[in-house]
Each structure stands twice: as C-alpha cells, then as structure tokens.
C-alpha cells in the first residue's frame, strides 16, 4: 500500500539531478542539508479552518490514518519523498510553460506531498450541488441565446446581458444538442471559517488543470497511498461525453482536441488529454471547412471528416470568418459547420456568457428560476456595483472586501481590501465608479488551509478546489478535483501562473458510506 523501498528513493534522487539538467527546470531543491537532524514540529496550528486538522489540534476523522502515517515517517524521510515527488513529476513531464526574456521554458508545477482529504459523504453532497448548478447554468445560457424568458420575467436584468463581454451575437438562435453549452465546467470552491464549501467562480470557457489532478495522483501513488476513491476514469468519461456530441451516427466518431499550439501555457494538458483519449491533437491549420460545411483534418491519407472538436481555443480566435479576423489559431468556417449541425463543439461558443462574475452573483436566482430548487452549494455573498445601494456599500467598506473585475480570470486585476494600501484602494474606487457594471465585491473569506511542506517544516497554506463537471445527456463530476495551494505564507493566490502549486485530493470513505 505504501511505497517504502529505500532504493527507489535513492534512484529517484540521482534522477533528480539528471532531470534538472535535461529539462532545465527549476525545482524546490533539497533542503536536507540544513539541519537534517532537526525534528519536525508536529504541533501544527492554523488560524483558519483547516482541511486536515480539527479545532482541537487533532486530525479530522478522514485524515487520521494519513496524519498518523506522516508522523511515523520523520522529517528526513518526508523531505526525501517530497523530492521524489518532484522528480516523478518532472519525469512525467508535468510542466507548464513560463515566458521570460530569454525565451520560454517548461517548468515543473510545484507539487506538495501532503494531500488534502475530503470525506466521501461530504463530497457526494457537493457533487450533487455542482450538477444542479451546471444544469441551471446550461438552461440559462440556452435561454439567453433563445427566447430570453428569464429577462422577460424580470429575474435577470437585460442591461447586465447588454454589458456582457462574453455574449456572442453570432450564437443567437442556435440550440446545441441536449441544450448543453458548457460541456466541461471547472468550478472553484473554497471553504470558509464556518466549514462550508462555497462556489467562488465557474469556468465555462476552457477550464484547465484536470491533467494535473490526474498526474498528481499518479505521482502520489508512487510515494504515498491510502484507501482513496480513484479519479482516473476522467479521460474515458470525457471521451464518452465528446462522442455523444457527434452529428454522425458512427461507432467511432472522429474526435479531436484543438490546441492553440505548443506555445500555449496549457499545451501539456492538451497533448496529455489527446493522448489519454487516443485522439488527434490538432491545430487550426490542420483543419479545413469545405463548401459542404463539414470540418476535415489534413492527414497523410488525405482529408478526414471530423465529428467532434474539444476546443481549447478562446471564442475570439475560433473562426476568423465570424470572430477576430486576425486569428491565426482558428478555423475559417468553423461556426458555419457548427451551426449547420455538422460538427460538435465543446464547449459551445458563447458559453462564457455565464462565467462572468456579475452573472455569478445571480446564480442562486438562476437555479431557483429554472429548477425551482434551492442551491445546494452556496455562492459567496456578492455585491453588484451595478446596483446603486450595493455600490455605495462597496465604496464605504472597501477595506474589508475583495473587489474583482467581471471578466478577468487567473487572479488578475483584483483588489484584496485588507491587504491593499490606501493608494491602491483609492485607485480601485475610481475604477469602480468609472465602470460599475464591470465590478463585484465579496467579503474577505477566511479561506481554509491545509498542512503543507514549506522550508522543511509543515505549515498552513491556503487552498481551493477545482472539480470538473462533464455534461451532455448525463453528468459526471470528478472524484474531488484539483486542489491548488498558495505556496507562500498568508498568500491567497493559487494560480499556477502566479506561483501557486497543487496537491493531490483524496476522497476518503471514512464511515463506509461507499459500501452501501
């Protein structure tokens, strides 16, 4: 169950040096040299709700076997395994691209050895809530591009839609199969001080990170283990979902992954998913739309018709005929083919209209409106600066709030009130007043922490969680998701582009719920 072969680790250590040379990748290094004999302080304390450790200092029920095991390893052993993880990650090629002045390089995503643990019973409820949420969001998108009943009924304001940067005129009147627009959704969850998991945002365009989730588990299996629910059926589920979108009734539809190319920061994931699903990884220039409005890929056997495209290119670059004319990444005529029903596209163009942060604040109403149900996973309370009374509240209390622009992702362009300087807060007030529609504010959450190896000690670091939800004629939610961790003390920024790392996420059947 647990890998305890000392030879395995010494081999990995040797490989470590070699890999560093081969990939030119930066790693955390080996801090065994600085006082290898010193002991780990197991009196771990977090000032926040902690994922593994309860309020009285003992491990939570689901984390108990893990914590006991970690304690038994001792510091040196623990750090060796941390290094072994990094090597395994490098060897597996779990990298993302970083750009700097001298060009670009593949860098290993920082990975933390200590997993985050969630009890299966809790996860089942969260999964159900996520399916409820994505179902409602898809009905909402379908309605916006159709009759717009929700606007006529006065539940969702027309002016919010009018100001949406991600609403695509070109999609009006289209009904994709099953009425589903967001086939792959990555929702970010955080746990607040009261222990509740909240949805922080939904990513309905081209959410990434699922490959890290799966590869993290592969790496983890080599160094730690436990009674964990498996996650590795995702590629097969993804393939089935994509195949269900095929316009041609065939046993083996031709599915492809469309990537912007190898210079994209998520290229590793695109290539990885294509490989896992056994489908071609294509670029825009590999595809052509002919006069019959069908999509073909150029192969050494001539042109082959493509049935379903899992596109990892933003809407704006998808088809120069309809969207940005200067796009070199897309496929001329793709929208024509999609509208004609000759090709399946996931996610559908225009799905991003619902992952706007202002739209986010309406999700509870959206769920009630379409499903007549109460939301099972709550939203973070959100003030909309588009509404006068809420705008006044935001301006008056900005030092306690987190302010976010509506259409940015990746943690860019936001203000964390309590951590910002007076000057930064004044600057944001000015920005908000100039364009209130573009801003929302939320209370600063006391986001939960998870024990994390840092500088040779175990320290609390903030984490979030990105599960992935697949939708077509049926739904699938990953078992857990990608836990992202802010590697710096006190930091809340978990994005890989800004120095965040990741952890394996264990869904543990603590009370035998899985047996029933």
């Amino acid at each position, binding site marked *: 169950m647990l890998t305890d072969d000392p030879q395995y680790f010494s081999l990995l250590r040797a490989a470590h040096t070699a890999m560093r040379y*081969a990939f*030119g990748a930066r790693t955390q290094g080996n801090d065994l040299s600085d006082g290898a004999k010193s002991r780990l302080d197991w009196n771990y304390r977090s000032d926040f709700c902690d994922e593994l450790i309860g309020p009285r200092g003992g491990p939570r029920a689901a984390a108990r076997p893990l914590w006991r095991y970690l304690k038994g390893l001792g510091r040196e052993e623990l750090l060796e395994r941390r290094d072994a993880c990094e090597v395994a990650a490098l060897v597996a090629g779990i990298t993302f691209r970083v750009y700097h002045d001298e060009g670009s390089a593949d860098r290993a995503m920082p990975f933390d050895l200590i997993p985050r643990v969630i009890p299966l019973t809790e996860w089942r409820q969260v999964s159900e809530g996520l399916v409820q949420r994505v179902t409602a969001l898809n009905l909402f998108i379908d309605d916006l591009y159709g009759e717009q009943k929700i606007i006529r009924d006065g539940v969702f304001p027309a002016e919010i839609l009018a100001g949406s940067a991600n609403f695509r005129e070109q999609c009006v009147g289209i009904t994709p199969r099953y009425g589903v627009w967001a086939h792959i959704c990555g929702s970010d969850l955080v746990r607040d001080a009261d222990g509740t998991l909240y949805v922080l945002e939904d990513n309905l365009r081209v959410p990434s990170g699922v490959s890290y989730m799966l590869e993290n588990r592969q790496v983890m299996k080599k160094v730690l283990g436990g009674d964990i629910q498996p996650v590795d059926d995702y590629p097969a589920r993804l393939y089935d979902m994509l195949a269900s979108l095929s316009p041609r009734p065939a046993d083996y539809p031709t599915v492809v992954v469309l990537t912007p190319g*190898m210079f994209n920061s998520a290229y590793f994931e695109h*290539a990885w998913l*294509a490989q896992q699903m056994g489908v071609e990884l294509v670029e825009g220039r*590999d595809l052509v739309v002919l006069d019959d409005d069908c999509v073909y890929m*150029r*192969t*050494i056997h001539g*042109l082959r018709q493509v049935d379903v495209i899992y596109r990892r290119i933003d809407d704006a670059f998808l088809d120069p005929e309809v969207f940005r004319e200067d796009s070199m990444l897309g496929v001329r005529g793709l929208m024509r083919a999609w509208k004609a029903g000759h090709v399946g596209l996931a996610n559908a163009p225009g799905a991003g209209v619902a992952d706007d942060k202002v739209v986010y604040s309406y999700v509870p109403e959206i769920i009630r409106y379409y499903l007549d149900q109460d939301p099972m996973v709550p939203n973070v309370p959100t003030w909309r600066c588009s509404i006068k009374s809420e705008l006044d509240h935001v301006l008056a209390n900005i030092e306690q709030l987190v302010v976010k622009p509506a259409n940015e992702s990746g943690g860019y362009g936001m203000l964390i009130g309590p951590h910002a300087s007076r000057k930064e807060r004044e600057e944001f007030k000015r920005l908000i007043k100039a364009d209130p529609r573009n801003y929302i504010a939320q209370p600063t959450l006391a986001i939960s922490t998870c024990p994390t190896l840092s500088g040779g000690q175990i320290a609390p670091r903030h984490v979030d969680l990105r599960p992935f939800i697949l939708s077509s004629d049926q739904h699938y939610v990953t078992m857990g998701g990608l836990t992202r961790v802010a590697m710096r003390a006190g930091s809340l920024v978990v994005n890989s582009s800004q120095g965040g790392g990741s952890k394996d996420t264990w869904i543990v059947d603590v009370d035998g719920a899985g047996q029933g």
Partner: protein
Amino acid sequence: MLSRVAENLYWYGRYLERAEDLGRMINVNGHLMLDLPRSMAPGWAPLVRITGSQALFDELYDTPGERQVVRFLLADTRHPGSVLSCLHQARENLRAARDLLPREVWEQTNDLYLLAQDQLAGNLSKRRRQDFIDLMIRRCQQLIGMLADIMSHDYAWDFILLGRYHERADMTTRILDVRSAHLLRGVDESQPFDQLQWMSVLKSLTAYQMYRRHVRLRVAGPDVLRFLLGNPLFPRSVVFCLGAMAERLEELPDHETTLVAVARIKRLLDQADADALVEGGLSAFVDHLQLELIAVGDLMRQTWFEAKPDA
C-alpha cells in the same frame, strides 16, 4: 497521421542528418588541411559553397578563414543552416510530434541541443571543436539506433527516414559537385596529389575506407564517382539513399507518383557514364540530380503534407 505531424517528422529526420553531415564535413576538412601541401589545400571556403550559404556568409564575415567558417557552420545562430540551428530545428520539429515517439527520443534530442548550446558557447579551440563534433555525431547515431530499435516501424518512422535519406542524397551530390570541381578535365591520375584530392572527396563523405574495400587500391576519378553515385551497398551513396527512400515510400498511402520520381533518378544514375562525367559535365549532371531531388520533395509535400480537398 496528421499531415503537419508527418511533415514535422520528415524535417526532424532531415535536420538531424544535416547536423551530422555538417559535423563530418568540418572534421574531414580539418584533416585535409593537414594532409595536403599548402598550395593544394582546399581551404575553408568550399564548405560555405557546399552548404549554399555564400551570400549570408559574406554578409556576416569578412574572410573565409578557418575560425570564421567553422563558427558560421557550427555555432552561428544567425545562420539557419548551422549545426546549432539544425539541432534546434530538429528539437522544435520533434516537439509537436513527441507523443508519437518513445519518450527517450525526445529527451535525447532535447539533451543534444542543450549540450550543443552549452559546448558551442564562447571560443572554440580546435581540440574542443573536434571533441564536440565527435560527440555530436555519436549522439545522432545513438538517436537513430534508438529509433530503429525501440519505436514501431510505422508511418512516423517512415517519415523520419525519408527525411534522413533525402537530406543525405542531397548532401552527397553537393559535396561531389564542389569537391570535384577543380579536379575535372584533363586530370592526370598518376599525379600523387590528384589521387590525394580524390581521396579527399571520399573522405568528405566518410567513404574512403569502404571505397578501398569495394573498389581497388588506386583511387581514380571515375571509380570515385561510380562509387559515390551508384554503389548499392554503401549507405552514403546516392543510389543507396534513393533505394532506402523507395522502401519507405512503398509503406505510405498514395505513393505512386513520388515513387516514380525516385525511380526516375535511379535510372538517371544507372545510365550515367562516369568516365564521361569526369571529362566534363559532372556539374550539369549534379544540377540535374538536385532538381530531381527537389521535385521529389515537392511531390511529398503535395501528397502528404498539404492534403487538398480533392485528394
């Protein structure tokens, strides 16, 4: 297989071969400069002519001295045909196709480029230059051996090999053309230096030892041409390269027209009269061969790399 990926693999094969061939050429030229009396020594300028990069060289350097030519051909990143540029191109072409090949192949190719980048930085002493080239050639050979032994001999393999032999056939004709230019017409083979010079042509192609085994002790112009153009057993002869290409082509879909074009070049070689070529006309003949080789490249592009709607 995607056309783009097939093209990437073809160029991977070509760039790897080009780097290796360039390395051999620079090493051999170094030896020649030591073997021949100063008055007969070829100097370093022919290397620039062989690689067809005279204009760029003149733009970047004043004199075709050893230091300049070697830097230009080995380490100059401004020259797309330098060894370093070729290894970089090989790596970038492979990057898009890396999932089709065993993981070690990508790691080795990547490593080879990083090694070259590292070793070619700064001043290059003769000794360091030679050590690097020897190592580089060994690593290229290792890569090809690895491919032959651990990857399936599928389409990916076919395209890599097509690139490799296409490049080699091209390089062999170029070397023949430039190296023999001043040897032709009215040569007296009893002259020891003429012999030496024909030997140098063989050596430029690492063909001397095999020639001696296959032909006879004395090195004569027509025999050298016959060997380098038409020996079916020596893997750097033009005919051997064409045969190897034909074998790979037969594995590919829709190969007829390209295969016919390759057969046409083979026929040209079969019909060539080496004695007459030495007397004059080699240059025109080589030009003809090169045009035919380019035509084969065009056919490959039309057939596999740029699928058309009516294909």
